[in-house]
């Protein structure tokens, strides 16, 4: 496949289809959108099968013309490959989910989704800093329109909030990028990843990038746009928002913050850990009291994303791999959960949990799939969620016992709010005749959910398929950032209990702080 511009082709197919959709009648636009996304999925499979695992770090590299300030340079590593796969896999499902529920201005709707797909793939494939920024930021426009035109009752507020929040974060990142390119003299991402900025500059740059990615992620306390955007967006919009757009934040940390600013990342790990720990507990508790299904899942997304961030900043293999699997798993599971909500929303036109009940009686197929995705969200062994949480928390435990402890409570709380949701929706008595009249999944809906369920199971039972492509990339990343790894707060010192006791007394409840200056030589916690 070398030499064939497959990434450009993957961008071109939905881009052309998006333009075509605008000039087509509704039904044809749906078909064109579905075909274009399926072609992209097929290209994605080609991409994955021809990806040389363990080969060169950057594959399918395309060096395009330079247009003023950016170059059309594309190329992917294992991380990007997996996230592109996630995007192209979810996209046909999104089109399918909107097949009947969207009847208003269908051509524009399909065009907006296809454009989103172009921008997502472009973001993951860009090898030029400013090309990345173009794709990253341009994604705001179609999403703004999707939420604002096809969203729920309070869509306008949500669309503004989504747009302005994320815009503000990204703009500071742009200033940092300008500085980096001027200092390093290149806008190529692989070369910037090898460039060492002075440590004090790194801190500022890291913070500027953090402003963008923390909002995108979203991390507590800048997560508040997410519940609004999710609740108001149409079902497919929520799927793509939770499934892929939230991953841009994690991808950003992985691609930029860690390899480009390792020292700053190491110094500011405490910030990530603190915010993430708060996020896990706080948003889980908030999710527990939600009366709106989409809002509940949105808050659970924030909690899951916090597991991603702690994993990334654990500076070890388990943490980073766990974070990556968490991104994929959450993309699938929360996407599927939003689809599940969409299924019953299409029937009853409310997301109010209390209006539902006893769905396992009249919608058994739906209840089974919903249960499966609930379990995957909780992290039941055998599903993708377990692999992700286990690895991520294990990685974190090696660095910060306290963070790992606090974040693990999120699993218990996660089980609480998800099971509570499931009990209220699926069990008990059927509350009304309307609910009793709801038909079970149609074959279209089944075809949307079944593939996701299969992949979730696959990732839970045999995660190696998903970990293999990124293994060498994790190693490369670790080799780059290892010098700045934050010290572990657990210091098992074999044969020197006195020193261990002294260390414990000094540290107290503080995780990781000030341990750098410690004179004792602790054994490796790995």
């Amino acid at each position, binding site marked *: 496949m070398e030499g064939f511009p497959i990434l450009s082709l993957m961008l071109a197919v939905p881009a052309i289809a998006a333009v075509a959709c605008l000039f087509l009648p509704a039904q044809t636009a749906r078909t064109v959108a579905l075909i274009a996304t399926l072609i992209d999925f097929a290209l994605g499979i080609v991409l994955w099968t021809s990806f040389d695992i363990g080969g060169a770090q950057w594959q399918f590299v395309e060096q395009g013309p330079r247009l*003023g300030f950016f170059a059309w340079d594309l190329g992917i590593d294992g991380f990007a490959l997996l996230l592109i796969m996630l995007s192209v896999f979810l996209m046909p499902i999104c089109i399918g989910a909107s097949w009947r529920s969207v009847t208003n201005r269908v051509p524009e709707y399909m065009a907006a989704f296809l454009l989103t797909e172009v921008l997502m793939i472009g973001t993951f494939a860009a090898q030029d800093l400013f090309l990345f920024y173009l794709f990253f930021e341009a994604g705001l426009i179609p999403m703004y329109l999707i939420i604002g035109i096809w969203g729920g009752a309070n*869509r*306008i507020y949500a669309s503004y909030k989504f747009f302005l929040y994320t815009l503000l974060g990204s703009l500071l990142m742009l200033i940092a990028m300008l500085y980096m390119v001027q200092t390093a003299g290149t806008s190529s991402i692989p070369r910037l990843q090898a460039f060492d900025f002075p440590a004090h500059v790194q801190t500022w740059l890291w913070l500027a990038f953090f402003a963008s990615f923390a909002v995108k992620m979203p991390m507590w306390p800048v997560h508040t746009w997410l519940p609004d955007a999710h609740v108001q967006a149409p079902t497919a919009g929520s799927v793509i928002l939770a499934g892929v757009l939230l991953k841009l934040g994690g991808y950003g940390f992985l691609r930029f913050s860690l390899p480009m600013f390792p020292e700053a990342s190491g110094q500011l790990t405490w910030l990530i850990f603190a915010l993430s720990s708060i996020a896990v507990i706080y948003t889980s508790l908030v999710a527990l009291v939600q009366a709106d299904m989409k809002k509940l899942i949105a808050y659970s997304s924030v909690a899951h994303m916090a597991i991603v961030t702690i994993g990334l900043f654990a500076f070890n293999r388990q943490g980073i791999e766990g974070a990556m699997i968490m991104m994929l798993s959450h993309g699938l599971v929360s996407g599927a959960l939003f689809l599940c909500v969409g299924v019953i929303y299409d029937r009853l036109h409310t997301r109010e949990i209390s209006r539902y009940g006893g769905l396992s009686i009249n919608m058994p197929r739906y209840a089974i799939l919903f249960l499966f995705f609930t379990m995957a969200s909780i992290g039941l062994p055998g599903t993708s969620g377990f692999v992700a949480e286990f690895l991520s928390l294990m990685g974190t435990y090696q660095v910060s016992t306290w963070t790992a402890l606090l974040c693990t409570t999120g699993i218990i709380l996660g089980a609480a709010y998800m099971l509570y949701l499931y009990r209220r929706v699926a069990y008990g008595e059927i509350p009304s005749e309307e609910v009793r009249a709801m038909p079970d999944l149609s074959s279209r809906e089944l075809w949307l959910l079944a593939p996701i369920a299969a992949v979730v199971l696959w990732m839970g039972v045999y995660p190696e398929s998903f970990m293999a492509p990124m293994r060498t990339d994790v190693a490369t990343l670790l080799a780059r950032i290892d010098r700045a790894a934050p010290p572990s707060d657990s210091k098992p010192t074999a044969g020197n209990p006195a020193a261990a006791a002294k260390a414990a007394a000094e540290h107290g409840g503080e995780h990781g702080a000030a341990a750098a200056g410690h004179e004792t030589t602790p054994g490796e916690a790995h």
Partner: protein
Amino acid sequence: MSYAANLAMTLPELVLGVGAIVLMLVSAWGGPGSTRLVSWASVAILAGAGIALTGPAGNGGPAFDGLYRADAFAAFSKVLIYIATAIAILMAPGFFQRTSGDDLRPEYPVLMLLSAAGMGMMVSATDMLTLYVGLELQSLAAYVLASFMRRDARSAEAGLKYFVLGALASGILLYGISLVYGFSGTTLFDGIAAAYAGQRSMGLLFGLVFVFAGIAFKISAVPFHMWTPDVYEGAPTPVTAFFASAPKVAAMGLAVRVAIEAMGPATDQWRQIVIFAALASIVLGAVAAIGQTNIKRLLAYSSINNVGFALIGLAAGTPAGVAGVMTYMTIYIAMTLGSFLVVLQMRDEDGQPVETIASLSGMSRTRPALAAAMAMFMFSLAGIPPLFGFYAKFAVFDAAVAAGLFPLAAVGIAASTIGAYYYLRVVKTMYFDEPVTAFPRFEGEVLQGGLIAVAAVFISPLGYFAIPLLGGWAMAAAQALF
């Protein structure tokens, strides 16, 4: 240098001046019936002036003993000015035809030509008095244009307001010029620069402050912006489009030339003024626009906001910064003229102009192509990639970061989020709200539609293909000043 060589370097202004006088005679004898002829002839004269730039007028160096300079910077600005003026002439007939009251008269294009000649002088001036004469020629024509709808009270008010405040600003500027002259002993830019490079007296500093205050009025930078919304709202829409484009470029060109050529050695002094004006314009232009209900007022505040961004490039005070300013102005006039061309399409059944933002409601259903173009202009003005307006912001902020002005860059770009809010509001009105009565289409507006399409294509991602060319020219223009 022979007199003929001097004249050759001012050929564009000569073409415009002589052309304007001839057309004035044509219109005096031809009466209102000659409007169409005079309009097209004016466009041809502007094109001729543009062609004249390819000769010594484009790159000839100093003329008239240093009073005037024909360099790449002036040529770049003049091309923008002529294009914007031509478009402002071309968009007028459709507006005046259907508006009750005054018809379009042949004086309109003639005044535009005179104004263009004045603007050419502004960007070419290397002497304080040449500068002032050019500025006044431009302004006097503009005062008349603002009140061109004689029987319309708002238009008359706009003209009067513009005149009174413009005269005040000219006074401030002249006062500054007199101080500079008094303490440096010359009105030539290079002499002034030499004075600033030496021992700087208090008088020179005061002169600098007053000169910049006068210029800030002309580019409508905060805190000298207060005339802008009223004049923009009251003036006939094609005239507003003109004010928002060509004179902005000219005034910005003038500001850059004065700042770099005359006061370059005092960069540290004027930089504070420019930074303040930039940030204040960005913030006030954005905040004050939020509450507007009239689209022309909104665009007036948008122009204040945009001037703030362009000033960020000037604050850098480097060739890259100047190139950024020129790039910014190029893209800005495309966006702004495009927006005003869309505003011209906002009319009720009788052809009367409608100016409320609310009347745009649901335009995406009734006039989808027009709404899409307007949405592109708005997103572009907000600087959202992949639209070309992003590159304009990129260019100026890149220069500011390169000059080490990190706090300015960070605050300025963060404040652009506020601006994004009201641009989004226009998009929201067009796309999210339910349709109200549609704007009717009128016959014979192929030209306006075509101009909108051209502007939209230019600011679309296709515009990126113009970057190598545009960037090269802007850099060549900037280098001419250093």
